């Protein structure tokens, strides 16, 4: 019995059930439920209805695809820049200002800036890139800079080529830092992608577009917004779980 109640999955289920109970109580206390705080029953009912139509799958697929494309590009760019910066002080210092700017510029401003160069459809992809690049970049740089001095001294003695040194030794040693950067930016990229869709207010598919549309159709009904948000949360939990599993696998390698 003690083993069962200490089980991670059981505890997480208990937490979820408790959350739903609190949510239910809060929505019952508030008058005009659908207007302010729809309860879990109405929300899950609406989610079930959505699951029977292709629309929600198209929205989830579009948002996920935009996120993955944006994240992939940002990883490649940030990884290359990070490895160079980790090995070259001058290059790293040159990138301090652009990376700080990318981290600081308001995301809403980015939307309008990016629109000048790319169509509405590509805005979420570029937003994800611009938000994730600094995070992954810093993770890669920190990872390489925090390699034990013993290994760096050994590298100098053995006179290994710079590419081989990075690929075979530095990057694997920096992997824990890089994985932390990947997992934190991956989760953020999904939220950012949805937000970019809401700001553009585009009629194209995506969870953010679905949220914006539901507000436009009936701003007094919060049930769709809660439902779409829950879909996004569930997706992120699944993705987080996959990333944690992959992280453990890679670290073991």
């Amino acid at each position, binding site marked *: 019995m003690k083993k069962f109640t200490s089980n991670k999955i059981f505890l997480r289920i208990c937490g979820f059930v408790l959350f739903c109970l609190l949510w239910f109580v809060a929505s019952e206390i508030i008058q005009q439920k659908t*207007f302010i705080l729809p309860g879990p029953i109405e929300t899950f009912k609406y989610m079930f209805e959505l699951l029977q139509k292709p629309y929600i799958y198209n929205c989830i697929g579009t948002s996920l695809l935009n996120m993955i494309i944006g994240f*992939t590009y940002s990883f490649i760019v940030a990884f290359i820049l990070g490895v160079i910066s980790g090995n070259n002080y001058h290059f790293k210092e040159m990138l301090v200002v652009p990376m700080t700017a990318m981290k600081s510029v308001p995301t809403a401003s980015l939307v309008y800036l990016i*629109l000048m160069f790319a169509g509405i459809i590509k805005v979420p992809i570029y937003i994800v890139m611009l938000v994730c690049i600094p995070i992954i970049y810093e993770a890669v740089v920190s990872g390489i800079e925090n390699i034990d001095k013993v290994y760096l001294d050994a590298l100098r003695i053995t006179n290994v080529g710079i590419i081989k040194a990075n690929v075979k030794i530095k990057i694997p040693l920096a992997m824990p830092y890089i994985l932390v950067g990947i997992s934190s930016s991956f989760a953020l990229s999904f939220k950012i992608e949805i937000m970019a869709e809401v700001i553009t207010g585009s*009629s*194209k598919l995506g969870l953010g577009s679905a949220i914006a*549309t539901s507000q*436009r159709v009936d701003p007094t009904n919060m049930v769709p917004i809660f439902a779409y948000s829950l879909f996004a949360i569930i997706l992120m939990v699944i993705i987080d779980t996959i990333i944690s599993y992959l992280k453990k696998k890679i670290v073991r390698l």
Partner: protein
Amino acid sequence: MRKIFILFISLLMLSACTNGSNQDIEKENLSIICPAGAPALGFYNKLDNLQIAEAGIIKAQVLSNDKPDIAVLPTNVAVALINGGAEYKLASTITFGNFYICSTGNDEDGIMSKEDNIVLFGEGSIPDLVFHYVYGNEFDDAITYVNDASVALREIVSSTSEADYVLIAQPALFTAISKNEKAKEYANLQELYYEKSGCDMYQASIIVSNNIDHDVAVRFLSEVKEDINALLENPEIIKSVIEEKQIAQEDVQSLFGNVDADISVIKNNNGIGIGYKNAYDNKQAIDIYLELFNLKGTNEEIYFQ
């Protein structure tokens, strides 16, 4: 590491393939971008090429490298962009105002006064300017601003709201009245604007890219005019088109919002203010409207002829 690298390269190739196929399809037809609501209704017969976006996004798109062929913008914004060098011409106006004052039922005497709580949306933009043009500054001390029409709608429907009068657009007003028994239309700002200025309110207009063939543009505009006239004659035509093209409900909502509400409002004396008037033929009325925004008279060069 090798497997992860291969996965990333595959995703890159996938995204590249997706981008290529979309561009080929777009070149075959005129691309249209417009705000949701009343303007979108005018393109119910051109849904394949229609994209909805916020007005600010449309403005940026018109100035970007990825320009749409046809765009719908607030008339003042359209004129400012064209005067600023955007390669477009002002072709026609398709919405003529859909702003109303709604009484929430909280005011006992039922007459809007300085002592009441008045809620407006869009501070500094069209709704605010029209309100002040009609009423002057008489009610300034009583005004509270909210961001947009959806927040204004919540002020009418919420049982805890203290607002007495709320500026709202159709079909949000239709939704508000259906959800709050005490709410009713207090004033029609389009009528009041007409009484004061002698002209219609040329709210949202179509602009046409200079890169389109002139005959193609003329044909397109003529089709839009016919479609809008048909819509005014029989608002149910939208539903026929939706059924014929088998458009999913969610896609319809993303384009038009609540279609049933739209149809009811159009049937009720065209409360949504949709129509079609050639811009060049109504230059004088447009110039009068643009005075709201401190814009001087327009030059003939900006008009599509």
